[in-house]
């Protein structure tokens, strides 16, 4: 059972453009995390959102947790080639740590 669905699956944009990645679930999560993964490496945590409606900013990245704590979004402003990577959302019900389907972002210089 896939608990977390991400969209879009693939995204290719020009440098300087804005983009939004979505993470949706039918389940309620106490918190959601966002990770970025480079090829051949493990995912690295970017942020954790905890409170419904919470907004967190990390430089040009803005993360929002849905009011019902079932969904989250990642918005990148003025994307840079260094933003290229696989973005994953994750939730931790009980003792598990489940990941979303992933969004592969490519920023073209």
């Amino acid at each position, binding site marked *: 059972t896939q608990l977390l669905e991400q969209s879009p699956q693939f995204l290719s944009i020009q440098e300087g453009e804005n983009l939004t990645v979505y993470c949706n679930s039918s389940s309620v999560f106490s918190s959601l995390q966002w990770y970025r993964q480079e090829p051949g*490496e493990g995912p*690295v*945590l970017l942020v954790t959102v905890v409170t419904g409606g919470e907004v967190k900013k990390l430089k040009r990245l803005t993360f929002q947790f849905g009011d019902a704590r079932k969904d989250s979004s990642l918005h990148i402003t003025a994307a840079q080639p260094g933003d290229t990577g696989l973005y*994953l959302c*994750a939730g931790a019900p009980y003792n*598990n740590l489940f990941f979303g389907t992933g969004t592969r972002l490519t920023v073209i210089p």
Partner: protein
Amino acid sequence: SQTIHQWPATLVQPVGSPLSLECTVEGTSNPNLYWYRQAAGRGLQLLFYSVGIGQISSEVPQNLSASRPQDRQFILSSKKLLLSDSGFYLCAWRGDSRNGYTFGYFGSGTRLTVV
């Protein structure tokens, strides 16, 4: 600080051969440990997790097994590899912040190719 070690980094094994991937964690005690498999460019599929020594939960029935012989050691095994076992395997430790946030620390992964 906590660190997680995973080896080997790459592995090429023939079909039908056994498998053993090892993961160890330093700097924490009684961690929740996880094994994931990742298809190219996709999300992570949870295979096994363990909340303590000898305690293994399987999320997906398949040709793999896991063991936790020590508190900070998690092993992924197979008696006979299949071609479909190829993939990128990741070990993770679940951390809990002082504020109760849960997050994952990952090893560097093992690229397994079954030929």
